[in-house]
């Protein structure tokens, strides 16, 4: 499990890092918000611990910016401010949990463990990519026209929107979308990719999902 710790108080940063590493986590530690955001955009993490008060960029801004980019990794906020409004602001901005300072090390560890074992994903009910939007409440795929997707089609397109412009293999898609259907195979994926391609065309979107049967597929802005 890989964690990012962003905490500007050097002593606290070091103590927490050592404690988490001792508990078996792989930890990247940084001391300001800008550095934290750079790391989050570049690397994949299983959890992020963000101090709210940090130089260059505060923890809430880091959180808001990563959520805007559909980065769904769980976030624990560390807050010296114990005001209700601050805690609410943090959770509203997309944090999964918060811990007021000062805190006991064993509580921090317990919360990090709880957060990283959570299987349910952070998700937004409204995703956009290029010229189309995808609504999780209604399963509507919308650009100039709109169509309603089936649940499987929605899940497949969602995983592409959450991984924009990335090559996703047939195996990866089978594992993430069709895990409950052992009979699904490369042909199933290929058929659903073709559904999505034609549905993007039917709503007059320019986006496309190039790729060959059995290979990798990528969501791109122009077909």
């Amino acid at each position: 499990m890989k964690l990012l710790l962003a905490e500007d108080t050097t002593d606290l940063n070091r103590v927490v890092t050592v404690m988490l590493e001792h508990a078996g986590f792989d930890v990247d530690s940084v001391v300001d918000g800008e550095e934290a955001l750079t790391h989050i955009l570049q690397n994949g993490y299983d959890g992020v611990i963000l101090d709210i008060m940090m130089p260059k960029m505060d923890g809430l801004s880091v959180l808001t910016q990563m959520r805007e980019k559909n980065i769904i990794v769980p976030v624990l906020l560390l807050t010296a401010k114990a005001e209700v409004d601050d805690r609410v602001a943090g959770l509203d901005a997309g944090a999964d949990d918060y811990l007021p300072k000062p805190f006991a090390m064993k509580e921090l560890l317990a919360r990090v463990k709880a957060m990283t074992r959570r299987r349910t994903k952070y998700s937004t009910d409204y995703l956009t990519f290029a010229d189309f939007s995808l609504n999780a409440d209604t399963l509507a795929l919308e650009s100039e026209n709109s169509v309603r997707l089936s649940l499987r089609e929605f899940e497949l397109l969602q995983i592409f929107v959450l991984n924009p412009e990335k090559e996703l293999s047939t195996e990866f898609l089978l594992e993430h979308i069709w895990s409950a259907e052992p009979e699904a195979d490369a042909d199933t994926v290929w058929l659903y990719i073709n559904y999505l391609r034609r549905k993007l065309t039917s709503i007059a979107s320019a986006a496309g999902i190039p790729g060959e049967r059995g290979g990798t597929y990528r969501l791109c802005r122009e077909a």
Partner: protein
Amino acid sequence: MESIYGEHRAELEEVMRRLLAYIEKVRGEMEETSGMDPVEHCLGRIKSEESMREKCRRKGLPESEESALSLIHDAIGIRVVCAFLDDVYAIRDYLSKLPHCETVEEKDYIRHAKPNGYRSYHMILRVDGKWYAEIQLRTISQDTWAALEHHLNYKKEINGNKDLIVKELKRCAEELASTDVSMQTIRDMMNQGHDTL
């Protein structure tokens, strides 16, 4: 009262029959090559006296032969209901190339659906340089939807929340549109055979 079509009703009927015969011909040809009749059903009608007079009044035109035959373009109306989306466009391509017929107007409400969810392909043809005919091409799903939507507009008393009904009808149009695309994709895969599936 004299007919709004003057002495021309028989000619309108003759033009309609010609157009219907062309459509029958292409159905036969396409079934020959692909093994599948592209058209589910096809209907033609001459707009009734009352509807035509009402349309003249609505558009602020005199109730005259000129209005009915030249200014209004749906004295002859033909609806072609196809099984699949691609068939709609195949029939459209065929109609646009008919001898003695020119396409004077086209509206693709399938590609650009109306805000209420209506989807159909509309063409106005001018036959022999003077007779106008409106052709509506759509899929079975689109036709089913239009039938219910028509009922909503003409039913005086609607039971229930009208805004909700309009919104739900639009949702149905979007689900049907999605299914039309899925069915077309499945047919394409079957036709492509072993190369793909």
